[in-house]
């Protein structure tokens, strides 16, 4: 038991390897599990290892752990797939709160022998933890729609002021280390408020980036606390999360085509809203990544080519995508509507050019049978031929025409450049349907991006 804390090294390595594996789709699950083992090991070692001034309190500790585990598990089991980011945000807030808890207590333990280093570190942990705490809660609120965007004209000034005040206080405290009953509480209060004013002005669409950033904050707080306790695994685990979280934040910004700077300082990220409202309803934009994942992990994918595929000359890259998917065990077929394109057999010409085997081409009736089994219907530049108005809107000029009933499939992704109409010049309710997501852009480049994404997934 004496030297059990050497096992911290093992724990640290597990965390590192876990994080590493988490960053590749093929190993991500394993990585998560490894990290969890690392964490469990660290907790066990912490409980068992000899420490200075030990008072036990094991019952309470175990009780707290059990309680926390139960709550955590319930939370995580109950949450909807779609609500996961919120939950992560909430969890992160708890992590920050934990950092706050310990540092506030430690601050009050300061005495004359406390080194400047330790003092500064503890205050920093308190401050950063506080921001992570309330910031995460605000992010949670925004994601669940409970908190609205708040755009006080002076938001960024406020933030600046909080920052200056707080740093000033900490420096003051360190230089004049006289015990100051109220000071830690003031710092805490400011950090909590800072968390609020930091996140409140940022648009809801940017929340994932913010959560990632706040996650890095929690990591930093943990690392700082690790310094305070001279605990290796806390230090290293915290640093790891801090640095990888920062990079991840940058990457996420890049993936959204925004700069981290504009997210944080600008604070007005909400221009990048992803929903276009229309008289008919709301159009949902698909993210490239989601679409790629969806297709990669689908059983059956049905491609519905239309005139847009011809215009974009996307047939070859479509075949490439087909190949990538097929190699990964996905069944890909093509539903060919009799009037797709601009001449009889237009799609046949294209797909023959791309060397798609004839037996992958499914005609209208068979396709309509098959849609119920397809996980993703990928509409490549088709419009009129997938217009459900032909089935259910007697006032539509194309009412009664047989169309591809792709709404029977589980998900619909539409690749086109805009909300423009097709040949017949009529609105297409498909695009406003719940199941449908639009991926705007030239079909060829969209398919290329999808293919790259899918290939990069293993």
């Amino acid at each position, binding site marked *: 038991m004496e030297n059990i804390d050497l096992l911290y090294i093992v724990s640290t390595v597990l965390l590192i390897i876990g994080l590493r594996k988490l960053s590749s789709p093929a190993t991500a699950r394993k990585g998560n599990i490894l990290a969890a083992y690392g964490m469990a090991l660290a907790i066990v070692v912490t409980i068992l290892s000899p420490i200075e001034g030990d008072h036990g309190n094991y019952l309470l500790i175990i009780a707290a752990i059990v309680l926390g585990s139960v709550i955590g598990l319930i939370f995580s089991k109950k949450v909807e797939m779609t609500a996961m980011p919120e939950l992560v945000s909430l969890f992160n807030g708890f992590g920050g709160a934990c950092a706050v808890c310990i540092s506030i207590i430690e601050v009050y333990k300061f005495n004359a022998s406390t080194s400047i280093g330790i003092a500064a570190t503890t205050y920093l942990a308190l401050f950063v933890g506080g921001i992570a705490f309330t910031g995460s809660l605000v992010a949670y609120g925004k994601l669940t729609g409970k908190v609205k965007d708040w755009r006080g004209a002076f938001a960024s000034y406020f933030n600046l002021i909080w920052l200056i005040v707080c740093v000033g206080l900490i420096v003051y405290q360190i230089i004049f280390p006289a015990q100051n009953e109220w000071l830690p509480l003031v710092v805490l209060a400011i950090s909590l408020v800072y968390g609020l004013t930091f996140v409140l002005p940022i648009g809801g669409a940017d929340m994932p980036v913010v959560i990632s950033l706040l996650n890095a904050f929690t990591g930093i707080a943990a690392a700082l606390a690790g310094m305070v306790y001279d605990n290796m695994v806390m230090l290293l685990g915290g640093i790891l999360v801090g640095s990888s979280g920062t990079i991840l934040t940058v990457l996420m910004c890049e993936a959204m085509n925004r700069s981290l700077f504009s997210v944080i300082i600008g604070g007005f990220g909400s221009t990048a809203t992803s929903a276009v409202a229309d008289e008919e309803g709301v159009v949902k934009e698909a993210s490239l990544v989601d679409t790629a994942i969806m297709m990669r992990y689908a059983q059956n994918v049905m491609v519905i080519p239309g005139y847009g595929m011809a215009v974009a000359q996307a047939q070859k890259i479509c075949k490439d995508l087909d190949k990538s998917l097929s190699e990964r065990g996905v069944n890909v077929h093509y539903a060919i509507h009799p*009037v797709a*394109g*601009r001449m009889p*057999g237009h799609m046949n*010409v294209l797909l023959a050019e791309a060397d798609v085997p004839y037996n992958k081409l499914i005609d209208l009736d068979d396709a309509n049978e098959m849609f119920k089994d397809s996980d993703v219907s990928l509409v490549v530049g088709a419009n009129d031929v997938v217009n459900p108005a032909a089935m259910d809107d007697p006032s539509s000029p194309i009412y*009664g025409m047989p169309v591809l009933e792709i709404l029977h499939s589980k998900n619909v992704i539409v690749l086109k450049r805009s909300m423009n109409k097709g040949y017949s010049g009529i609105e297409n309710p498909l695009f406003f349907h719940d199941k449908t997501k639009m991926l705007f852009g030239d079909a060829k480049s969209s398919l290329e991006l999808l293919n790259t994404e899918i290939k990069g997934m293993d």
Partner: protein
Amino acid sequence: MIIGLLKCTEESLVGLIPNVVSKLKKEGHDIVFEPGAGSSSDYTDQEYLSAGATSLERREILIKADVLITVSGLKADDLSVINDTSYVIGKFNSNVELVEKIKSNGIKAFSLDLLPRSTIAQSMDVLSSLASLSGYKSIITAADNFSGYFPMMTTSAGTIPPAKVLVLGAGVAGLQAIATARRLGAVVEAFDVRSSVKEEVQSLGAKFIEVEGSQEDVSAGGYAVKQSEEYIQKQKELIHVSAAKADVIVTTAAIPGRKAPLLIEDRTVTSMKKGSVIVDLAAATGGNCALTQNDKIVEVEGVTIIGDSRLYNKMGKQASLVYSNNVFSFLKFVFKEGLENIPYGHEIVSKTLLTTTKTEAVSA
């Protein structure tokens, strides 16, 4: 209802193929057919009988059937026999005389070549179906008459460059010609007055020849309209240059109800290489080439000029199949609520029904 299938002697097509007859039968209709109706397109009477149709004399069919199906063959004698209450389905519009007679006889005839070119009507659109066949066939025939390879060939007896194909008028037939020529490895250029066609042409991998300043009329429902003099001059010059380099020219340019535009002049033909081929699908309305003779193959200074607006007749069996499918869709649409409740208000009916006035049709 009783559906009568007439034999058409003008074209090697039949209005309903046995397969479609069975489908109609299954929907509860009775089909009577004129013996030999399918002979010109390789369907035997036996096949009709096994599909459930009954053989009858033409006259009897004319009298008994509620709906008469033909292609373009309706004789003047027939008209007097046909019942007031029965409908005739065919494609008559190119035969002005016949249309006049039909109208004067008060026959309720649907001419499918008058269908609107709308999305909903496409499954009945015989013009599209047949033009597609003609477009395909135009290249096959051109290739058969052309004295060279279509694809490029690097052989020990010399490198043979790919054939150059020029397609004038990129409607349904033109596009199909482009696609077929490209499949065979030819280098294809195309031209059309409608600028929206440019994208369509390029989507098939062909080059679009652009002439600036064309006139368009959206109200023409996708069809071309007549062009200004200046434009026509520019166009002629550009076409002349491209045509002189071409090995094969397919022309399909048409303006409904008018003479076909003259796109290839004498001098263009004479400047072409020997062994080249021109297929003129607009021959019936005067031809896009000055030297075209309708329904004839002529050779002018080594250039073969094939004038044939109904090339699909060379693929009678296939043509009958698509035609019958179109007719089937049309029947289903028009008579979906029986003989009495025809949706006269709908474009598809109002545009195709050959009657003197609309009111008449509605009152009928």
